[in-house]
């Protein structure tokens, strides 16, 4: 059995940051493994621990810098990694369809039994790559799952899709399929020291869009980026913690919001 996990590196801005042109200046950004993908990696590694002969392969569309993030996934139990990149991809906002085409090229090469993908990335948050990939690669899919039960003999999986308002949809999905993984589905592990050491030795292959036969042309472009104007007028309590706490308590009592 082979599981493909899509892994993306996300940029997290500092509390205070500055925007230059259409992007946040790099010195205010910290790069890390996308939170949703951390759960996707864990889900794949758990399946590989439950069944014999399971290979977990990760795929990332990202620049060389992203290899640090990819090594995190390898340290947590991914067996080998593929990174897809070309400098042409670095220019503009990559639309989910293009990302999906690139990933579909890897699916075609690897022929996984199923794919785990995070529901969304923490920075761009399109929330679309997994389902677009399924359609592009001709796989079945289920979006936003918080429970996954594999039935290898039946060639299917039973999942719970997390809908709005605390409602879950119970669905059976025929394999091969893409599952987009919601946070909370499991408890992602921390990489062990041994895992981190071993990750350095695991294969990490780089492929270009040309290798995959994909012609890259993003249909989207980010024309402006700004900090949204806050429509609100917050009244701030100021001073030391003791002072602000006293002010807030007095306010709540005054408003008769709290009887204590």
């Amino acid at each position: 059995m082979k599981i493909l996990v899509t892994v993306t590196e996300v940029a997290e801005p500092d509390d205070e940051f500055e925007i230059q042109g259409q992007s946040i200046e790099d010195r205010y950004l910290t790069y890390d493994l996308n939170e949703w993908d951390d759960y996707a990696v864990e889900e794949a590694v758990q399946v590989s621990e439950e069944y014999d002969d399971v290979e977990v392969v990760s795929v990332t569309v990202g620049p060389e810098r992203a290899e640090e993030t990819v090594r995190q996934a390898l340290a947590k139990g991914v067996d080998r990694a593929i990174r897809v990149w070309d400098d042409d991809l670095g220019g503009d906002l990559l639309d989910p369809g293009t990302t999906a085409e690139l990933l579909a090229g890897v699916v075609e090469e690897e022929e996984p039994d199923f794919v785990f993908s995070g529901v969304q990335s923490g920075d761009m948050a399109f929330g679309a790559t997994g389902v677009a990939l399924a359609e592009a690669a001709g796989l079945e899919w289920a979006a936003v799952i918080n429970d996954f039960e594999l039935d290898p003999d039946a060639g299917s999986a039973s999942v719970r899709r997390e809908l709005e308002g605390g409602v879950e949809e119970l669905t059976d999905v025929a394999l091969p399929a893409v599952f987009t993984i919601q946070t909370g589905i499991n408890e992602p592990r921390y990489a062990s020291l041994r895992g981190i050491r071993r990750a350095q030795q695991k294969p990490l292959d780089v492929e270009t869009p040309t290798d995959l036969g994909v012609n890259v042309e993003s249909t989207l472009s980010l024309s402006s980026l700004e900090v949204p104007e806050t429509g609100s007028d917050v009244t701030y309590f100021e001073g030391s913690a003791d002072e602000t706490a006293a002010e807030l308590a007095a306010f709540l009592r005054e408003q008769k919001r709290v009887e204590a």
Partner: protein
Amino acid sequence: MSDVLAVAEHRRGELREVSHEVLTAGAELGAGELHLAVIGGDVERFADELDRGAVDTIHTVAEGEEFNHGVYVQALEQVAEAVDPTYVVTPNSVNGLDYAPAVAESLDMSLVTDAVGVDTGGGLTVTREFYGGKTEGEVDVFDDRAVVTIREGEWDAPAGAAGASIQAFDADIDETALGTTVNGFEEAGSGDVDITEADVLVSVGRGIDEEDNIPLIEELADAMGATLSSSRPIVDNGWLPQDRQVGQSGKKVTPDVYIAIGISGAVQHVAGMKGADTIIAINTDPGAPIFDIADYGIVDDLFDVVPALTEQFA
């Protein structure tokens, strides 16, 4: 003149509110014909309810009771072939994101999700958030045709009856191609505490850092006679049960007072608590989106403020 195809959403016999909002967003996207697809469930009743605003034609596809993405993709491919829309507009809901990317891929249209604004003067430009709501950007779409998913609650429901033409669309659904079977629904995490009934909620988020720190917030809630709730990461980590979760996937709450402690205010959280009468935020990050909707704020370390506040009510 751009024609637009909007898509309604329903669950367990009821239309979801966003079904009306796609009509308003759809009218903004194009001055041509506005079509609406209603797929599955009680399509005739839904069509009557959605005969509002500027909708010209409502296509009903009577196929199944509940959402199935395979049915939606096939039906939308066929409706789109019939009406040839420039734009398709769908909810940016869990189900919307279960079919819209596939429809875009299948119809070879560009896709922009989670729109909070659209502008069609000189090609399509979509306004959406980036970096967890810390920034907002404008996305230019080069393709002539696009699928746009809209954030729920950003557009108003259209006013006034439309008098649309309601047509049964005879979709040819290939049942053998459906790879998923929906077996039912379950309400998640119904415990003994109902946070939707609370007058005062003390809500804790990621800023609490560790499970061992949760009692700090519990003590404050106890001292104030308030009910404890939380944002999603706390429940994901298993630090509090699911029935305490406020937000899109948790509970929608409308207390008199909502005190958000160490909660950044991601849109999914805000969707669940913006109806609170008075919102108070305690957060170290002055740029946290929670301050955009808070009435009162303290920009400080919760580990300093919360014990001091508990002391005030002791």
